């Protein structure tokens, strides 16, 4: 047994170094593969800055970040919010923040959670490996910030703000879900940006130049060709490449927002896995430290109190309930995986024959690397975790005057609960499925979008407001058809149909 590293709650830079050294050693023993860490000690005010820039260490200026900041400030002043764990940046080196107000225990917890937990997740999970380039993100964000500032100087803050507002509205429709990108460096990005400036406008013009030529021989036998030939899911990409009226710098702004949306897309898809993984490791590492005598009982008590708060799951009927806590769900699944490896039961052997009794480090490593929330839950949510969390599936069907409990945590229900929960984390169900359907290239240049309803779920009221943003970017009429079973169930148009305008007048 060694001597505890420290015994009171004050931290110092020497102590942080010492804790970090031990945590790093233990993490490496467990096989965690991490980027080098950059741990930044900051004040509470700076933490609020970090919060409101939505996880970007450098961001361009925009009022919405100011709004976020104001909100964070308010929450913090009221003491509703602990500013502790959340912020860690998927970059190389991996940047994490420690708040100066925290105790030594909290600093150690955050180091274990963020600098080793999240860090190893960023480095190893396939989505991050495919979609993000940790070594270039900070440079790219710098490029974006400077570019936006330059535009503001040249074209005015209002002009830039308007375009960014519109792009932000489409951020969730600005990602490629299936295509794979080749990550490029910021240097490369700058060079390409110059090139794009020259070619892009020209290409857009080419698309529209064909119009008058085709107009003449638009015979009855010549069926109008669709554009795009196949429906496209990435609205921002389509707009960047094809919007008829955008200036070159406006296209570049669309691209910047699109790139950032793409960078954050893996985080949206792996919330449960990522938070669960980080929580599993802060828990495991700190327990190892306790076993080695590196931390004392006081440290452990404070730690457990904090850990329990983080993974607390209020039941559905609690006033504090606001959905499943991703920390709880993820932590429970990883913990149970470990348990199945070490102490498998009959049930485990039946449900998870490959996992029961296997090496837990390898099993968890595999689970962390190769899944996203949806597939992770489908693959690994065990009956035991469903029982522990007392999960149940409830149906809300239109036209039925009652909710119906479809399945609970019992033998008959496990599979259904698991399947429904996995689907809940599938972003293609969460976000409405909207595609670019057609552009009227020969007529009024209107853009037709199509929403495909799943289980008859319609679009929300504010769809019209979002379409205004699409309209600002596209420059001509924009139509959205919400399709249910192949039929147009609802139709939105900006500006509103001329017919309806006439009748209104």
């Amino acid at each position, binding site marked *: 047994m060694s001597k505890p590293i420290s015994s009171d709650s004050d931290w110092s830079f020497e102590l942080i170094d010492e804790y970090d050294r031990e945590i790093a050693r233990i993490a490496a023993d467990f096989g965690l593969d991490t980027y080098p860490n*950059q741990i930044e000690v900051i004040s509470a005010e700076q933490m609020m*800055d970090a919060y409101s820039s939505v996880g970007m260490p450098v961001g361009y200026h925009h*009022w*919405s970040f100011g709004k976020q*900041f104001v909100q964070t400030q308010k929450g913090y002043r009221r003491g509703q919010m602990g500013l502790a764990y959340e912020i860690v940046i998927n970059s190389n080196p991996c940047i994490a923040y420690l708040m100066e107000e925290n105790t030594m225990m909290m600093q150690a917890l955050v180091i274990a959670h963020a600098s080793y937990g999240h860090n190893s997740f960023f480095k190893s999970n396939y989505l991050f490996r495919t979609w993000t380039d940790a070594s270039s993100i900070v440079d790219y964000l710098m490029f974006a910030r400077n570019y936006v500032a330059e535009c503001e100087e040249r074209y005015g803050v209002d002009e830039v703000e308007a375009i960014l507002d519109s792009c932000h509205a489409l951020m*969730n429709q600005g990602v490629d879900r299936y295509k794979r990108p080749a990550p490029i460096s910021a240097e490369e990005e700058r060079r390409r940006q110059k090139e794009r400036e020259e070619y892009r406008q020209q290409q857009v013009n080419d698309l529209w130049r064909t119009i008058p030529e085709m107009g003449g021989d638009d015979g009855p036998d010549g069926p109008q060709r669709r554009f795009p030939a196949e429906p496209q899911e990435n609205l921002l990409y389509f707009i960047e490449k094809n919007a008829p009226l955008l200036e070159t710098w406006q296209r570049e702004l669309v691209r910047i927002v699109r790139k950032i949306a793409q960078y954050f897309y893996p985080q949206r898809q792996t919330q449960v896995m990522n938070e669960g993984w980080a929580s599993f490791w802060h828990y495991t590492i700190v327990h190892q430290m306790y076993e080695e005598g590196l931390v004392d009982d006081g440290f452990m008590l404070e730690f457990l109190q904090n850990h329990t708060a983080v993974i607390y799951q209020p*039941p*559905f009927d609690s006033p504090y309930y606001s959905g*499943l806590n991703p920390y709880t769900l993820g932590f429970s699944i990883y913990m149970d995986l470990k348990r199945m490896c070490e102490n498998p039961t009959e049930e485990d052997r039946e449900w998870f024959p490959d996992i029961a009794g296997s090496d837990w480090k390898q099993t968890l490593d595999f689970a962390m690397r190769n899944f996203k929330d949806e597939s992770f839950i489908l693959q690994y949510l065990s009956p035991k975790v469903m029982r522990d969390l007392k999960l149940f599936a409830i149906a809300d069907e239109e036209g039925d005057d*009652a909710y119906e409990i479809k399945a609970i945590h019992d033998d008959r229900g496990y599979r259904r609960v698991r399947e429904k929960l996995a689907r809940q984390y599938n972003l293609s169900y969460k976000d409405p499925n909207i595609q670019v359907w057609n552009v009227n290239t020969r007529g009024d240049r209107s853009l037709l979008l199509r929403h495909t309803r799943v289980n008859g779920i319609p679009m929300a009221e504010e769809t019209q407001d979002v379409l205004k943003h699409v309209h600002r970017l596209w420059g001509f009429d924009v139509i959205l058809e919400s399709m249910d079973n192949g039929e147009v169930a609802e139709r939105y148009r900006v500006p509103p149909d001329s017919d309806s305008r006439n009748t209104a007048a």
Partner: protein
Amino acid sequence: MGISHVVDRRLNGKNKSAVNRNRFLRRYRRHIKKAVSEAVHNRSITDMEQGEQVSIPNEDIQEPVFHHGTGGDREMVHPGNKEFVAGDRLPKPPGGGGGGSGQGQASDQGEGMDEFVFQITQEEFLDFLFDDLALPYLVRKKLKDTASFQYVHAGFTTDGTPAKLNVVRSLRKAYARRISLAGKRKRRIRDLEQQIADLEAQPDTDDPAFSKERQIEDLQEELGELRRQVKRIPWIDEIDLRYRQHRKEPKPSTSAVMFCLMDVSGSMTQVHKDIAKRFFILLYLFLRKNYKRIEVVFIRHHTAAKEVDEEEFFYSRETGGTIVSSALKLMHRIIEERYPTEDWNIYAAQASDGDNWNDDSPICRRLLQEKILPLVQYYSYVEITPHEHQALWHEYESVQEEFPEIFAMQQLTDASEIYPIFRELFEQKTT
């Protein structure tokens, strides 16, 4: 050593979000201004110096994105089941909201969920409060009035008084001169010394015409001459000296003094006094915000006038009759004693209920016309009364006709008018 790089960032980049916050305030300035002007009406005198809570309706502030609406068929998973079993049916709440449980929680903060509420700081509060307002005619004064002068630094010169000698520059010049005059000779001296040393090391030749001694002697002679010359170069010379030069420049006068004159006589009811005080507090905050170097003179009067400090001006109470001219006289005396017009922009604001000894009002008019208005940039008068105007108002009206540019008067009947009237009096005027 750990593999982590620990950095202390606490000292840099404190207000990283300031720009974004300002962008946010800028976008919603309409809402904020409204909240600010409402606050001015509702607040008591003492808490004008605080931030303010601003609410913005959510529909104005939301950033819309495509998302699902209510309706259709859903199946959601929730935790914490207690007694449900598969097949249980739970009646939907009336009104048919749908969308599952866990939505539409009420706020426990006592604020509506449909409002975005936040705080602006005191500084921001004042910014919005005094947006677009300025002390009139300050600029004009600055340009035209060049009666006072100041000395400004204007480089260096070759003559001047010892007191203005710049030692560093003088020595630098001397050094440069010494280098330029002696450099060539010093090089020659080193050269000669080397030659002499070389000769001394050589074996003597037999030819007397080239004897070593002769050669050394010649060289020594030249060397001696050069050394004397170098020695004659003065270490510092008259032409090295440099003096600081100053030029007399007209000084634009930007210092300002504000006279606040308030009637505290018995005829002023508590309500009147409060209104007057609020008006002056606004004015005072406005002045403090705009001009770093501004002086404020507080004069309160009933039958006699007295110069008081800020505290006493706003917070102590008095009664008695009214002689307005006493305050004007005092103001005039203070200007003559302490605020020469070539150095000061002078402003005055006066508040009263219009009550005055009838005989005194014409005196006030003459004092203004003859003594005070020629000295000041701007004089504003607010009369706080719901009643008929009395002699003072009418006398002042004739003053205004004569000096429409620099004399302004307004009537205030209740607290809600303070801010609009204040804005009217100090609306930015293009000069």
